[in-house]
């Protein structure tokens, strides 16, 4: 039955030109890419170029600008607030990323232990990452209140400090406070992704090392860390990228103050461009972020990636 049906099937019908074109993988690929590509070109690539162009103009809100060459960059070069924001951005990114990495790795190692209620604990750990940053930053704003901070109160009750602590009003303490809030939000992402990496390490390696008399520190240093290094490179690249371009947390907690001590490049760019109205100058600051950003990404990606061969190449 089946064979007769197959034999009596009509000869393949003529395919029209249109059909043949649609079967071509290149045409089809471009057709399928069209919605995403059109959108990204219009709202991502074009604005990127427009941003670079705006950086060379003196555009203000409500007034089209004229080409001024490097004038914006020259004025930024002599602008101490700009350099302070560059310094702050680097300090913020560096300290926060290192703390996030160390605490996140520690938490991942803890979560990798055999624990009851593991799923529940893991769900709770992710909460700070899921909740909108602005909304959790508002909670930190209240926790860091100058007068009614619960942390100050607890420290006073424990007898550790006498007076009040001006969490967000003193330049140095404010820097530490915003970094603490950023680390708090960033730990879950680092921990959960590193946990996934930890679970791919075969237990037999640890067992073999233990039989050979390795201490737990040696096992961590010579097995866990090398096996984890590819995923560490990826996670830290993302972490550096998002910390470097952070805006929300600073905007909620300090708006760059006190004395511009917590102004990051992103917040400075916003402040000059939107409330200040100097779109050209704001765009120039944003463009100035790009080389630093590329440098930071290159550093964290290639610096941490060297040992990828130990995993037998990519993924």
């Amino acid at each position, binding site marked *: 039955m089946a064979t007769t049906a197959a034999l009596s099937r009509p000869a393949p019908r003529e395919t029209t030109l249109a059909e043949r074109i*649609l*079967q071509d*993988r290149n045409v089809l*690929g471009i057709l*399928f*890419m069209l*919605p*995403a*590509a059109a*959108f*990204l070109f219009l*709202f991502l690539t*074009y*604005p*990127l170029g427009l*941003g670079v162009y705006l950086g060379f103009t003196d555009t203000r809100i409500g007034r089209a600008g004229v080409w001024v060459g490097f004038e914006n960059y020259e004025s930024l070069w002599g602008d101490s607030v700009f350099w302070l924001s560059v310094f702050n951005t680097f300090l913020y990114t560096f300290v926060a990323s290192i703390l996030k990495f160390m*605490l996140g790795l520690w*938490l991942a190692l*803890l979560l990798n*232990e*055999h624990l009851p209620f593991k*799923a529940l*604990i893991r769900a709770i*750990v*992710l909460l*700070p990452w*899921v*909740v*909108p940053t*602005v909304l*959790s930053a*508002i*909670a*930190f704003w*209240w926790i860091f209140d100058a*007068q009614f901070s619960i942390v100050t109160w607890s420290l006073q009750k424990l007898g550790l400090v006498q007076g009040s602590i001006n969490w967000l009003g003193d330049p140095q303490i404010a820097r530490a406070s915003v970094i603490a809030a950023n680390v*708090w939000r960033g*730990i879950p992402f680092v921990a*959960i992704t590193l*946990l996934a990496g930890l*679970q791919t390490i075969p237990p037999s390696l*640890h067992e073999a090392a*233990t039989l050979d008399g390795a201490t737990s520190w040696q096992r961590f240093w010579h097995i866990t860390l090398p096996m984890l290094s590819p*995923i560490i490179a990826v996670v830290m690249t993302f972490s550096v*990228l998002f910390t*470097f*371009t952070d805006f*929300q947390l600073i*905007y*909620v907690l300090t708006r760059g103050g006190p004395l511009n001590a917590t102004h990051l490049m*992103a917040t400075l*760019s916003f402040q000059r*461009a939107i409330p200040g109205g100097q*779109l050209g100058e704001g*765009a120039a600051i*944003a463009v100035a972020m*790009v080389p630093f*950003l590329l440098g930071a*990404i290159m550093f964290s990606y290639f610096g941490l990636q060297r040992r990828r061969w130990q995993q037998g190449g990519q*993924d």
Partner: protein
Amino acid sequence: MTTASRIERAAVTDESVGMSYLDRVPRRIVTVWLPLLVFMFVLLFPFYWMAITALKPNAELTNFNDYSPFWPSSPTLRHIKYLLFETSYPGWLWNTMLVALGSTFLSLFASVFAAYAIERIRFKGSRWTGLGIFLAYLVPPSILFIPLAVMVFKLGIYDSKLALIFTYPTFLIPFCTWLLMGYFRSIPYELEECALVDGASRWQILTKIMLPLAVPGLISAGIFAFTLSWNEFIYALTFIQSSENKTVPVGVLTELVRGDVYEWGALMAGALLGSLPVVILYSFFVDYYVASMTGAVKE
């Protein structure tokens, strides 16, 4: 299908005891339980503080001497009532919902086709396109918001929800495409080949075979996109002017703070209510979430 098996695999490794049986109980308490408790406390405390501040009457908020700061002695729903009936908060919730849904659907639509084309049609230059998509994901909103503001203004959609629905996909499309590429990669080629041999067109393969199989991937990409747009701040802050078009994060921050009078109770209630939708969504799909997050990062 594959996500499910991935989760199952994760569950199996979760059960593995490893070498922990070698450790004595007192040692485990110090090295595992104590640090873990400290971590949990620090990670959860701000939420706890947010919740009880929202429930405290104003008198208790600033008086730590007569009332215990860690527990509301006479809890009140006044702040929540104020928020829901005397401010534009319900409108902001509605706006956030609309914007998040709109941009999520727009992004998913574009991403499914793009991911399928890059991963399965393998047209000329698909590898480079994939790389381009990845790079597009790395472009931070804090670089794009100024030129986008200029564009939004020229397009005449400034101060409308459309401005957000059209700009959020700039980070959602690359992200979803990237996630779905990983998902399509896990679906066996043979299924497609069978369909091709049977005379199915590419369109039929996509709609009748790949999409039904990719539903878990679509769900996780959708959840991710929804949370990302719910959390977005800088575009919403820049492109929206009038109170009735604001989203929750922007509205809470800009409208509930009047001069020097901080309505802490209402602020915390606003933060809490604004977090609830994403937390609820996430608690239902936490397994998808973890699996797709680690899956996406592993690529």
